[in-house]
């Protein structure tokens, strides 16, 4: 089913590209910008934070989720992440471990506290919603150069900030998107906005990142991420607090034994 959809999407995308030979070759500028963005974010080692997710339906009714996240930077590979669910209370104690990879599917596990079971999850398709929110699993995975083909489209001023506008086409056929367009601040390479296009190349969601703070004198992190789904009218805000770096965590804090112990 999914394979069919994505094949159809690719054909559609191919057809459109043929009809509208839209972008001239950017001479590798898009990739250069993406590399610089990645380079500037290297070396943060580990971080942890608490996050409130505010889910809003098209009528504006709100629902909240509370999670804690721990992240470990892995050089030349995808990062590792551990997410512990605190609210809603029926899922409290549930924990999700993700080892993201470049060039192959992520390794994912779920810890189910009621039966004390660590369950491996098939993770080929990461387009599904995270905790019923407007964020897909793939929106929350770490930024890796191998995951996209980049193209610089133009420079544009966004909210008074000079930005590069970069088109990112996912290399993973199982991605839920045909492309995304990112506004990257030219000074600090902070990503201020991303537009996600579905497999039919229609605008699906817009993510805006705000309240950027600098950590360890180097790394910029947004403390508010707002995702709006244009097709359903729903939206989700991620409000991050108590973000801390340098706890000295290691791989041993991100294996299935640690997952079982997570509280």
């Amino acid at each position: 089913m999914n394979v069919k959809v994505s094949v159809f999407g690719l054909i559609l995308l191919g057809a459109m590209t043929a009809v509208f030979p839209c972008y001239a070759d950017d001479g590798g500028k898009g990739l250069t910008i993406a590399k610089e963005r990645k380079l500037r974010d290297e070396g943060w080692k580990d971080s942890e934070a608490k996050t409130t997710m505010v889910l809003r339906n098209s009528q504006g009714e709100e629902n909240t989720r509370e999670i804690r996240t721990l992240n470990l930077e892995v050089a030349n590979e995808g990062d590792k992440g551990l997410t512990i669910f605190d609210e809603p209370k029926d899922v409290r104690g549930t924990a999700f471990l993700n080892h993201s990879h470049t060039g192959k599917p992520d390794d994912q596990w779920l810890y189910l506290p009621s039966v004390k079971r660590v369950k491996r999850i098939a993770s080929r398709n990461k387009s599904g919603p995270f905790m019923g929110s407007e964020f897909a699993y793939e929106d929350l995975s770490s930024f890796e150069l191998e995951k996209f083909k980049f193209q610089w489209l133009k420079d544009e001023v966004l909210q008074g900030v000079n930005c590069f506008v970069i088109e990112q086409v996912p290399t993973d056929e199982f991605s839920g998107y045909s492309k995304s367009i990112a506004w990257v601040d030219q000074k600090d390479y902070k990503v201020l906005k991303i537009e996600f296009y579905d497999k039919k190349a229609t605008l699906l969601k817009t993510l805006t990142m705000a309240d950027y703070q600098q950590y360890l004198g180097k790394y910029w992190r947004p403390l508010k991420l707002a995702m709006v789904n244009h097709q359903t009218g729903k939206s989700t805000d991620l409000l991050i607090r108590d973000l801390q770096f340098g706890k000295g965590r290691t791989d041993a804090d991100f294996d299935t034994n640690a997952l079982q112990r997570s509280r």
Partner: protein
Amino acid sequence: MPPKKMKTLSRCLLALLLPCAFANAVPSSQLGPVTAQDTLWQLAKTARGTAPYSMYQTIVALRQKNPAAFVGQNVHHVQLGAVLHLPSAEEIAQIDAKAAEAKVEADAIYWQQWISAGKQNKPQAAPWPLADATANAAPIAANNSAAYVTSSSAAALPQVLAKVDAAPPANSTIAVSASEPSPPEHASAEMSILAEPIAETSSIDSDTTLSGETRWFPVKSAQGQSQLAVSLSVFQEWHWQSADEKSSWSFSPYVRLDGEDSERDLLDIRQASWLQVGDGWELKAGVDQVFWGVTESQHLVDVINQTDLADRPDGETKLGQPMVQLSLLGEWGTLQTLVLPWFRERTMPGLDGRLRLPYPINRQHVQYESSAEQQHLDWAVRYAKQIDQVDLAVSYFDGTSRDPLWLMPPQQNELLPYYQQMQQWGLEGQWIVDSWIWKLEAIRRATHNVDYSAVTTGFEYSSIGVLESPVDVGWIVEYQYDSRGMQALTPAQRDLFLGARIAFNDEAGSELLFGLGQDLQNGSTRIGKLEASSRYNNSVRLRLDAWIFQTDNVAEPIWWFRHDDYVQLGLDYYF
């Protein structure tokens, strides 16, 4: 005082002291003059503010910014009366967190040696910058007393008490008492870094789940039990974790009361265990639950915990098991060793309950093959390894079988549970291929009268966003085999299980699980279940479960349950 005790004490003191310290803290670019009441931790904490740096980084940055204020370059030895200039965020950020940790800890050892040696000369200090943080810290630790040998983690910091040679810090202040005579040339405040660990402070979490269930059996029972049954249960969990996340303690009692069947009444300790985590090992002692396995329709390999069968017919609920468990963890895999000193009997519905056997069970005369009965020392071992997209595990269990046989004494219409000794090899494997997980569980079990094998194998396939909706469906297909055939005590001898787990991905987290176990040799024998649940609000979840048991063959184990189809409504309240 043992270090452990000191740590706890210091933490309590810190809790008392910190609010006062903060009340007076005025943010500025300078701190001080340093008084005898100040602690290094407070100073560093004020210096750090809310910035996301480790306390170690801040302490080292503070010393670098104020070289003259620290005696002998030792971070723990601040001159009394010194005015400290606060490092900027950039300056703190430049300090390597790991190396800073090693420096602060190594200095603590030098500093303590200096105190023990009667404060001769100046305290020594670890060099900075450290060429190799770990290489420097290790030999120092090795020279020292046992209490500090393992000081490689954040936990070690609070152990280093400032006033080791003075009165124990049980008085109202933990800093240097002003009356202590100190020579003018050493007008130094001995900074107490008693205190707050790098990680969050330890605390006790309490979680309570209150559940109510109503079962309705549409078909009247031949034995006259009620068609409606109500039960209530409380599951209380207390959990404590040390600030360094190395030790934890859990206590989780569970109580169930049934309106009809007193055999369903239960007071169980689901968990009462202490866990210590080291570098490459974990030790757990107490009552706990251990799950082994990969398949969904049944759990052949999972033999550590006894089943609370009275709770639900699929046996997914387990009783707490007393155990000592040592796990060794490494790149090479995980090796788990268990010693199980006490046996728990299976819970079964009683005379007034449904889903019961045709005769009463005499639990006063439980029979054991071993003369040690419940005290037989069982043991088990399991080795597990992940090789890329393949997970493998091999396990061995030697001890009392969790599955009872039923003895019927002559001229008595009652059943005696009989627990044999058994040796079981278990194999678990799963292979992840894109959206497919192929699964296998196999056992070889030996008891004194029968050796048999059993296998569950199949796959789980996940489809995400079915028909362009947010709905995910996990399809489960598993084949169940038991070499005993019709002699098996389980319904799963040559059966096919088909299941679907539907996640609606809505705000209410609605889920639907449907499963059907079809006997492949006897077409009229099948078990079906439906589990639906949805969130009512942040604290309440509603459940609807339904079961069917169908057979026309008296030799099938589910023959006795063929009139016990039921629908159950449940409500869970979490607080």
